[in-house]
């Protein structure tokens, strides 16, 4: 994802701002990192350049 997306995306649950943490970057593309909600503290991973902003109960690691 591009860093300029930070002005557009928000937490899917409470719509609050997100805080970006970059682990790996290639030019303006953020490949690995995370987005943390400044309100509820939920952490959304950025993997392979695509942020996973699914609500927690729809994620891969959610309990079945």
């Amino acid at each position: 994802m591009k860093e300029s997306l930070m002005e557009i995306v928000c937490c899917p649950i409470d719509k609050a701002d997100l805080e970006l943490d970059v682990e790996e970057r290639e030019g303006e593309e953020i490949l690995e990192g995370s987005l943390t909600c400044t309100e509820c503290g939920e952490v959304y991973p950025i993997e392979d350049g695509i942020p996973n902003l699914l609500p927690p109960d729809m994620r891969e690691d959610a309990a079945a």
Partner: protein
Amino acid sequence: MDESRRVRETYDRIASHFADTREHPWPEVEAFLEGRQGTLGLDVGCANGRHAQLLAARTDRVLGVDASRGLLFEARTRARDRGFGVDLLQGDAAALPVRSERVDLAVYVATIHHLPDRETRVGSLDELARVLAPGGRALVSAWSTAHGKFDAEAGFDTTVDWTLPGGETVPRFYHIYAPEEFRAEVEDSALAVESFEVSSGNCYATVKREQ
């Protein structure tokens, strides 16, 4: 398991084959976009990005949102192959990770019928209304009983199999709408219907935020 997760996992599984069979944009989407433009475009349930590609020609920036990561990778490949820009987000149509009042032009086609119940579907339409800018427009479509495949007057829940090459079938949840039911659902949300049509077995509503 929650139905929304099940649908997402199904599309992750069939993503590659599904994308191959979804080459061309729908004429109804092309007709909606004709003469429209804006700063930010949004494709909810973007799949392989065939409609995000159309939006990219009419807006400065396009967001493609899909619950399935497999489909988002297909969209990324298509965008690279065809040379259009799209910002891809893994997200749920019922909980959009997009700030309010930003989107000028949106398409939400052939996706809402995968959401598990009326409350969730109306909630997703409220979400679309929330992200639309004043003056923004969106096209919402769903599969309907008007399709020749179905012999029903009233809307119903069903499972439609996807057949992979090799013959394996993968089930997908659908709510098949009666056209008037779809219209009522849109009108119950924070969206206002500007025009409504039934075409090729799908219902289409052109919508804006309720005043």
